[in-house]
């Protein structure tokens, strides 16, 4: 019987080869393209400097909207897609640890989301830097923290939404509610409530490791930040916690499919 690592690898590899040409993948591509397209438009036709475009679009559009949305679209499908397609019977009638279905498919989703977010972040910075408005050059103090936060955010959010797919029947609705109602509300409340959100830790990483230009972005100027190391550890703990909880649940849960 294949162990956890072997079956996770098999499921990861198969899912990775299958997911690129799905409708879901096209939706993700469109989402990922939104920030670079916006950066190009503003740089070409607006008055803002490259730094202003990169930091504002990087935070307000990419990290606050596109990262959670991309993670939601692909993360919530990790288990739900097999249920909706009614193919989970085949996987759950094989002698594999059930958690490998979650982990293998989540790793494929993670690689997919990370690739899109990396390209999207770097393209946003690159296109923003083409602005003709006079100002400082868009340097690594803008690009690197944005890339780090996007990749970390994609990983943590996709783990949360993959877990939602194991716990809830409609993870997309739950995920939308969480990402934009709960997080959106808490992340903008003054005080330590912000520390209950993923956004707070992403902002901490960007705010403490990035250039001073990030402090000019709406939402950064009054924030207190955790150190980057502390934020990183917290995000990794959240990620592991949700994957562990979802693995525990999927091992015990039955999925009732209709004919």
């Amino acid at each position, binding site marked *: *019987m*294949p162990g956890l690592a072997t*079956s996770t690898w*098999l*499921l990861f590899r*198969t899912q990775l080869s*299958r997911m690129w*040409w799905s409708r879901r993948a096209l939706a993700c591509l469109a989402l990922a393209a939104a920030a670079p397209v916006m950066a190009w438009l503003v740089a070409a036709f607006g008055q803002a400097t490259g730094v202003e475009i990169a930091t504002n679009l990087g935070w307000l559009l990419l990290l606050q909207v596109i990262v959670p949305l991309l993670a939601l679209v692909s993360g919530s499908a990790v288990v739900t897609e097999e249920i909706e*397609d*009614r*193919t989970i*019977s*085949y*996987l*759950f*009638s*094989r*002698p*594999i*640890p*059930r958690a490998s279905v979650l982990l293998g498919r989540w790793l494929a989703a993670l690689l997919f989301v990370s690739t899109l977010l990396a390209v999207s972040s770097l393209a946003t910075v690159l296109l923003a830097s083409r602005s003709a408005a006079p100002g400082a050059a868009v340097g690594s103090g803008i690009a690197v923290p944005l890339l780090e936060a996007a990749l970390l955010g994609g990983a943590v959010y996709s783990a949360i939404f993959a877990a939602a797919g194991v716990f809830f029947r409609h993870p997309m609705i739950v995920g939308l509610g969480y990402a934009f109602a709960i997080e959106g509300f808490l992340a903008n409340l003054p005080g330590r409530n912000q520390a209950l959100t993923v956004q707070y830790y992403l902002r901490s990483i960007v705010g403490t490791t990035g250039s001073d230009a990030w402090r000019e972005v709406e939402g950064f100027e009054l924030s207190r930040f955790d150190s980057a190391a502390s934020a990183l550890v917290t995000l990794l703990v959240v990620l592991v916690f949700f994957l562990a909880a979802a693995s525990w649940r999927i*091992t*015990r849960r*039955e*999925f*009732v*499919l*209709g*004919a």
Partner: protein
Amino acid sequence: MTALLAARDLARWYGPVVGLVDVSLELEPGVIGLLGPNGAGKSTFLKLVAGEIRPSRGTIEVLGRNPFANRAHFAETGFVPQQDALYNDMSGRDFVAFLLRLSGHSAREARDRAAQALERVGLADAMFRPTRGYSRGMRQRTKIAQAIAHTPKLLVADEPLAGLDPIARRGIVELMLELARDGTSILVSSHVLHEVEELTHNVLLLHRGRVLAQGQVPEIRALLSRHPRKVEIRARDARALARAVLDLPGVGSLRISADGTSLGVETHDLEGFLAALPRTAAAVRAGIRSLETPDAGLEAVFEYLVS
């Protein structure tokens, strides 16, 4: 000999809907047909046996094990689910090979076994095409191939002959008989008696979530023959036809509609009645326009049995 399957007070419900209730039985290895009308609880029973769902109450053991989420059970069991679902972007060969890899076979062995299983179900020519282009029958055969490719001790098949044309159906029946001869136990469901009869005489009758009877097909046939069957006939002159069919074999009661154009007949010998009817109707120039046997399905027989 270890029982193939043992259930004690087995019950399963889905919210307020009862799928199976108070099932206690033991089945010996072999081929067992699960027979019952739609909604009888066949799929629920098979999902419990396959380990896809767990009982709401009671216990079930398959080959001495609790099947739910049991990896040792899955290694020895092949499951043909009822739903028409495959990985549509994969070829039949890749789909079966992928599942074989998950059963622990090496890549090469999985490819070889997948090809062999697909050849056995008659899909040798189509195995490299994406399954999205398969017909209903081909998809059904792919489902069977993935269930037999790892040579299971027990094959659990939920309506495996549904959607197959007569030739493919014959092929699958022969394949299952061959598997049975090789020592594979098979639990197969259907709502069509003659389908099951081709595979085995050992049947389990389910109705409304309960086991109604467990026995041999001839006993079921006997029950069927005792059940009066209805025939609805529309004819130009139903009254003349009614007078003529009174003497036909097995006719128990007659009912003529008020306008004299339709006739309801109850008979204990449906085949004899239908064989004699054309000549009888022609003799009295009744002018038959249509003929229906509304209770020909198992549902009616089961209703009769429980009443």
